């Protein structure tokens, strides 16, 4: 299964990305390699083998619910292109 040019154009559009024709060609190649790898793995007969995963334990391994200091607001806002004293500013959104 290969990724087509049209599919990539659509994906780029919904992702808000722009690519040149050269980049599209490279991307199609890169995707092709990945899908070929997946197909190769899919071809392996796994029937009768129990599913194994190594997830973390919900009771023991997760972050404790303890507050740690957040950023000073000035620091949080410092990278913003537009801001006022307490908030980020963005173009008006239409509801």
């Amino acid at each position: 299964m290969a990724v087509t040019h049209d599919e990539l154009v659509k994906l780029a559009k919904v992702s808000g990305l722009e690519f040149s024709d050269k980049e599209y060609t490279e991307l199609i190649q890169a995707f092709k390699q990945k899908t070929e790898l997946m197909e190769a793995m899919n071809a392996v007969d796994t029937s009768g083998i129990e599913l194994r995963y190594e997830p973390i334990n919900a009771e023991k391994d997760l972050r404790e619910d303890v507050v740690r200091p957040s950023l000073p607001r000035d620091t949080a806002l410092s990278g913003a292109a537009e801001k006022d004293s307490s908030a980020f500013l963005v173009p008006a959104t239409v509801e």
Partner: protein
Amino acid sequence: MSYEIVIGLEIHCELKTKTKAFCSCRNEFGAEPNVNVCPGCLGMPGTLPALNKTAVEYCIRAGLAVGCKISRYSAFERKHYFYPDLPNAYQVSQLEYPLCIGGGLTLDSGKFVRLNRIHLEEDAGKLLHGPYGTRVDLNRAGVPLIEIVTEPDLRSADEAVEFLAKLKSALLTTGVSDCKMQEGRLRCDVNVSVNKPGDKWGTRIEMKNLASFSAIKRAITYEAKRQMDELDKGNTFVQATRRWDDKDGKSYPMRDKETSNDYRYFPDANIIPINVEPSYVESIRKTLPEMPWELKERLQKELGLSEYDARTITSDKAYSDLYLNVLKTFNEPKFVLNFIMGEVFKKLNALGQDDIEIPLKPEILAKLLKLYHGKTIAQATARELLDEIWESNADPEQIVKDRNLAQVSDSGALEAILQKLVADNPKAAEQLKMGDPKVNQFFIGQTMKATGGKANPAVVLEVLNKIINK
């Protein structure tokens, strides 16, 4: 030709954890904008999410309360869309492996409404629209939410509202959320379709972020009618999201862009799937409190309440908490119930809130009810005092003493008043002698007037009978 209405709900409920879902920023409502943010919830490159243990526990807890099966294996996906309140341009959610599956709640009619799932996700920030553009507050970005998805089992706006009220009451009881609709901490998306009985289901229309019971009821009623009218005219329509305008009482189409459903879900490789051991689930199950429907059964069995009374008093946690706590110091189950379902409900209805909050402390109400029950004060006085102490929680005993509000049960004092009334109203007195019971009310009313509402009606009647039959 009649239609059948098919409704499904997606309920979003903010969890009452101390910190956010994936970072240690404070989860706090009503703080100054952008004080609870860090590189993680601001979506800075190079940060990694760290899943909150309590958020997972609360999601499981909510699931257990409504009979879900808890997944042994659970994982998180990214749901992509662009909006200024979403710094990462994706929301972490659960699609393939939600924490809780199935479950449901029974309506008063006995109908069981099935849940599809409950999953854990994160909230977005808040946009503050002002005259100079839009400001973004990211305090809420990353706050843990559970999304509760029903099967399309509901068939009317009333059923939908009843279901939501029951769910809210259950969630409040588990303590995982304060469910304040007025603060947007419990919000509801509604899916509505209509079809002729026997036909296959119609096209589904979704309305998002309904924030009150009345909005939900009105939106469903309006939208179902709109769809029926369209179909009656022979029109068809496509699956879409419409915006409910609660002020207009109408739904409007949303621009295509906002409804595009291409979320490009894929596994969040930064969040390792979690393993929920059955022993952990059981340890959470053990800490579940008595649920409203269990309490209802117990009140029927132990206190002899009727099905209706038990159902009503357990329909909101605020009611049942007040009731049970009043009984702790004044154990007159029927009397207390009648007063709460009468006077207290009247007061709450007048306030018309979705989130029931009763400022009056149970021990203060118990004092008032003792005075009323013991006939120290008349009903009218009890009502007035309820108004007065509702927020102030002033001591009713003290007020009665200070203002001399105690009921006049002294038959000597009442006799003088009634003697005069009988003399002044010979016609009524005559009717009373003939045994006309309506006249009793006249004399009680006049005596109340003369005593400023403080006469004990039972004693009035007693004295009146004595005078008439002399």
